[in-house]
């Protein structure tokens, strides 16, 4: 029997758990109510998309990669399209780039509203959860009107976008934004003034700027710790060169700051979408891609709602990519959860986890193997892994 008093008591949570809708396994060692050690096991949603992409054609991958994540699907398809366009040496016309950014910003609005609801739910504030999800339906309607689908929009084509923006649609987007802006002002008031809610957010999960830089935090999580990292500003892509954004920064680094940064980003998105609608460049919606994608490598970095998305695409001149690598923001931010949870009460941990806006289907680019007897991890060298593969197939054929 293990000595629980010396090691503390371990609370396993997940992969099916009430807090999040996604599978992830956590173990928190607690001393009374205080967390002394945190551990996360990933890979429940690992499907092997990177490998699958090598077996599908350039066009098929557009639809596969959109399903890396259902919340930020447009960003993944956009990153892949930009990478393929970079390989092919073409650039989508300005009108297509502007429509891409328009959809990306609408997606940011829907994602931030979704996050606000889910993390309010973690705090036991279900009223805010229900209200923010009710208002989120407005932006879902706008996305559906624009693209024809509520979740996986399929707005991108290799070399452009699928649809044009009609004047009537622009008007309905403007009306929708007016409503959302008024509601967002109310939510900013709620999260920064509601005394009950502030007890759950103020001073909880504080990450200093130095910590954020060491742990490699990205996106709104980093910006709430005053790390000025936003690829829309630092390395503008698509139409962000013509439509610049202002970064929302906060120096407090706690959960309250993360709420405020995301809500301030919403206002910035509203402004940007209005500006795009006013100054939408005329012209074509797409360019023709060469029949064969030339050999080469392309790297694309984009700012998803949760932070930096990194795509590496390698072509050997064939009809499908030779290698594709995806890195998503959640994996960068999860380190901070494991570190920040230590020293906090167990009850605060769901809030700290929700504070980074985790997305496990995005980040499960790997699977962790455990030996059944000991429950411990095992690492294999490339040589061992290769031999294991050879033996495996030899056994299967025998």
């Amino acid at each position, binding site marked *: 029997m293990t000595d629980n008093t010396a090691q503390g008591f371990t609370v396993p949570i997940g*992969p099916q*758990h009430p807090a999040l809708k996604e599978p992830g396994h956590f173990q928190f060692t607690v001393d009374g109510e205080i967390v002394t050690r945190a551990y996360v096991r990933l890979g429940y*949603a*690992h499907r*092997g998309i990177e490998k*699958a992409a090598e077996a599908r054609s350039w066009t098929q991958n557009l639809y596969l990669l959109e*399903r890396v*994540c259902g919340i930020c699907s447009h960003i993944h398809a956009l990153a892949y399209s930009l990478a393929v366009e970079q390989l092919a040496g073409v650039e989508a016309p300005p009108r297509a780039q502007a429509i891409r950014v328009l959809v990306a910003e609408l997606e940011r609005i829907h994602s931030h509203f979704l996050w606000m609801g889910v993390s309010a739910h973690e705090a036991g504030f279900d009223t805010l959860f229900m209200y923010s999800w009710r208002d989120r339906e407005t932006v879902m309607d706008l996305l559906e009107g624009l693209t024809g689908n509520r*979740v996986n929009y399929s707005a991108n084509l290799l070399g452009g976008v699928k649809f044009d923006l009609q004047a009537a649609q622009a008007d309905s987007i403007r009306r929708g934004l007016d409503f959302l802006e008024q509601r967002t002002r109310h939510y900013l008031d709620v999260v920064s003034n509601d005394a009950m809610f502030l007890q759950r957010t103020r001073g909880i999960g504080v990450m200093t700027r130095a910590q954020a830089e060491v742990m490699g935090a990205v996106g709104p999580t980093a910006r709430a710790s005053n790390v000025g990292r936003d690829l829309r500003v630092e390395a503008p892509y698509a139409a962000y060169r013509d439509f610049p954004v202002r970064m929302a920064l906060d120096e407090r680094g706690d959960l309250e700051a993360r709420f405020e940064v995301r809500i301030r980003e919403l206002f910035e998105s509203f402004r940007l979408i209005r500006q795009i609608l006013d100054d939408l460049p005329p012209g074509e919606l797409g360019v023709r891609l060469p029949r064969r994608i030339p050999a080469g490598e392309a790297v694309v970095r984009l700012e998803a709602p949760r932070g930096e998305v990194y795509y590496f695409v390698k072509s050997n001149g064939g009809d499908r990519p030779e290698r594709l690598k995806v890195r998503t923001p959640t994996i960068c931010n999860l380190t901070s959860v494991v570190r920040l949870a230590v020293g906090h009460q167990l009850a605060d941990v769901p809030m700290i986890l929700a504070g980074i806006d985790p997305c496990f*289907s995005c980040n499960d680019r790997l699977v962790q193997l455990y030996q059944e007897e000991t429950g411990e991890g095992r690492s294999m060298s490339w040589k061992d892994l290769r031999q294991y593969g050879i033996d495996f197939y030899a056994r299967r054929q025998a």
Partner: protein
Amino acid sequence: MNTTPNVWQEVMRGMKTWARLNSPWVLHFNTGSCNGCDIEILATLTPRYDLERLGVRLQASPRHADILLCTGAVTRQARDRLVRIYAQMHEPKCVVAIGSCALSGGVFQGCYNVLGGIEDVLPVDAYIPGCPPRPEAVIDGVVKLLDGLRARGRQGKADSQ
């Protein structure tokens, strides 16, 4: 031996079916989904669509739930947990597969870590197709499932299962 059910058993069965149909509590498990279906399930439970008006409540524990909503293709790592969660639920229980991936594996068919759809692992009572299904489709699927349960209750199968 008297094989005809007595009146009390009839009444009790009717009451149980009535109670079950009016409060089907659901449990949601993501077995490797892209989140698209999950956020649509959540949208179904929130004010615009409000599935709670049919008595449907999202539960946190498998032991409190009657219906298991599964989203996503079944990955190797999530399979054992899915089976365990199903085993923890009390009879009578139903499984609903939501979304193209849960039906057949969807776009992830043939991936090395994907075993296939939910039906390859568990018996499925209702299928809701779509990528992702709209909230209206989820409501429609749940209503159809409840109709099926009502018919099953009338035939007296709900208890035996």
